[in-house]
């Protein structure tokens, strides 16, 4: 919280604020000192908030017309597409919004990885973020089941079957999840309920995420602590607000291209075929944003160990603040880490690619190597790098490199964007 105490000017304002300090909160949010050197990778927090709100608003509207019943769900979605006023727009925004949400969250996560935003004193922010990400995956998966197309049905079958890998109780758990002996109407209704609930849990966690952020304040591309407020910071409003708005508008243009000109390109054609338990689609793939984890799951020959590997791939992220032993946050000053960072990015992209390919031959081999490297990066390279790496000396403040030599700042900016 900022140091100065906010006092409302009006008498009523003071009376109200003494009882519920909403005005103090608003004042804190607008004055919140933010490092002035934040680049555009920092605008994705605001973009993600926008995505969440869009998903909730369009989702509520869709829920008014959707029918969660195995015999009626597909038809009700077609009803939305054809007869509900602007139903096609609402549904396409919601469906593509999920992909946009994940696109933004991946950029947000990889920005954290590059600039070491997960390190002390921001571990709790990071862990809350990982929980949000897990909930997003759960919600997106269940949302994809709701239109009750072929990919909905068979995707649900494959993913819920993962739980059958748990020893002794696995089969029981799967039956319990399904509410029957196969994916069916009870599965659909409970997925709908949970799909409706989870976004509000995410909303609550986002509040905690931002609250926890406002204790130490933002990290920045240089990764050093900034005194606040100081020459190194600007008030959140209007400086960061306008910059976030500009970035958000650019993001919305991309979003609009998907919604209006290729609304189905990120989906699968089979999901426009109504679910049929008697016919298995030729090729079952999850949505693109789950593919890296799907690749890890399939790269392990044993089913149980595959599930363990997949879950570990997410949970290893939660341990990241302690696995990365380097005291330097930003990759700008860590020449070796920077290289390993980009190898990790490529590794995850490869995992995503092989996740969409059959688990056999060369693809399986690539998946295995990439999976192994993923864990090596977090469990071996990062802990070792902390003590071995020779880092570049840090500037004393954000302003220092600027004041000494103005060409330095542009170097840093360029590097951080590369």
């Amino acid at each position, binding site marked *: 919280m900022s140091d100065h105490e906010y006092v409302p000017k009006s008498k009523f304002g003071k009376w109200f604020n003494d009882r519920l300090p909403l005005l103090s909160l608003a004042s804190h949010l607008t004055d919140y000192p933010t490092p*002035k050197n934040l680049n555009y990778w920092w605008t994705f927090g605001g973009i993600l908030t926008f995505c969440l709100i869009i998903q909730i608003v369009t989702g509520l509207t869709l829920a008014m017309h959707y029918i969660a019943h195995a015999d009626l769900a597909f*038809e009700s979605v*077609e*009803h939305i*597409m*054809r007869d509900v006023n602007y139903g*096609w*727009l609402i549904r*396409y925004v919601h469906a593509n919004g999920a992909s946009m949400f994940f696109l933004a969250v991946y950029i947000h996560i990889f920005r954290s990885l590059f600039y070491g935003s997960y390190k002390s004193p921001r571990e709790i922010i990071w862990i809350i973020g990982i929980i949000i990400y897990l909930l997003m995956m759960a919600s997106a998966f269940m949302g994809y089941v709701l239109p009750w197309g072929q990919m909905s049905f*068979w995707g649900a*079958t*494959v993913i819920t*079957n993962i739980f*059958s890998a748990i020893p002794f109780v696995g*089969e029981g758990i*799967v039956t319990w999840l399904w509410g029957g*002996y196969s994916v069916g109407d009870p599965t659909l209704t409970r997925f709908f309920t949970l799909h409706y609930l989870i976004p509000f849990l995410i909303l609550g966690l986002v509040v905690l995420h931002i609250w926890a952020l406002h204790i130490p304040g933002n990290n920045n591309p240089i990764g050093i602590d900034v005194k606040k407020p100081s*020459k190194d910071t*600007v008030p959140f409003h*209007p*400086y960061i607000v*306008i*910059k976030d*708005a*500009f970035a958000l*508008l*650019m993001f*919305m*243009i991309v979003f*609009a*291209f998907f*919604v*209006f*000109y290729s*609304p*189905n390109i990120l989906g699968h*054609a*089979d999901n*426009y*075929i109504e679910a049929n338990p008697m016919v*298995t*689609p*030729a*090729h*079952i*793939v999850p949505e693109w944003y789950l593919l890296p984890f799907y690749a890890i799951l*399939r790269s392990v020959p044993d*089913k149980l160990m595959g599930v363990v590997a997949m879950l570990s791939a997410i949970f290893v992220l939660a341990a990241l603040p302690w696995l990365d032993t380097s005291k330097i946050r930003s990759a700008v000053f860590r020449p070796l880490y920077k290289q390993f960072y980009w190898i990790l990015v490529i590794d995850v992209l490869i995992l995503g690619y092989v996740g969409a*390919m*059959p*688990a*056999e031959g060369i693809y399986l081999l690539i998946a295995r190597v990439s999976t192994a490297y993923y864990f090596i990066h977090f469990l071996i390279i990062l802990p070792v790098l902390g003590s071995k790496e020779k880092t570049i000396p840090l500037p004393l403040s954000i*302003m220092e490199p*600027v004041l000494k030599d*103005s060409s330095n*700042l542009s170097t840093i900016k360029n590097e951080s964007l590369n």
Partner: protein
Amino acid sequence: MKNIFKITYLTILLLAATHQVKGAEKIELLKIDWSFKGLFGKFDRGSLQRGYQVYTEVCASCHSMKYLSYRNLSEKGGPEFSVEQVKAIAASFEVTDGPNDDGEMFERPAKLSDKFVMPYANVKEAQAANGGAYPPDMSVLAKARTGGVDYIYSVLLGYEDPPSGVTLDDGVYYNKYMYGNNIKMSQPLYHGSVEYNNGTEATKEQMAKDVATFLMWTAEPHLEARHKMGFKAILYLTILTILVYFSMKKIWSRIESEV
């Protein structure tokens, strides 16, 4: 039970694998210029109307269109027949209504608000009449196949004699664009299968194009509205982005002078 799950799981993975291998040798679909592609893409009204004719005279005897109502045929962005024309079209179909005050079901001519009449009473009847294969509902078909309208167009024109060495079962035909090359539908379009009343020559290609266009519309009835709104939305966002960019520059200039 345990085994069933395991087998399902393995089959799925196996199928996924084999599909991909087959996918690698897939041949290029026929491509033509569709008027509805692109930023300003619109349906060719004449093509939609002819496409509807092909659908009714050729496809509709086996393929249902269950999510469409007759009124859709006169709505904006579609074939845009006049309301009178569509009333006449609807009236040529009989639907079962009721029960009436005597508790009896009765037959009456279809109205604008009625859904397209189905060719078969149920899936089983459709299968029985088509050698076990269910002719898929055509309402969203253009979105339910990889390749979309190009795929439909290609399959309609892809019938040929099987290559030597390929023997086909009775009632199975060879189609070079169909997934797996085996199709249970006999070649539906021949030169002059329908007679267009505006003088357009009913070549196979023309009919295939018209009916594929029609199916794109049935799958995506608001496509024109979407393209129109998309252009406006993106134009609006672009202008706003530029304005916000200059506001941002102005606001940040207050402190950048200090830098």
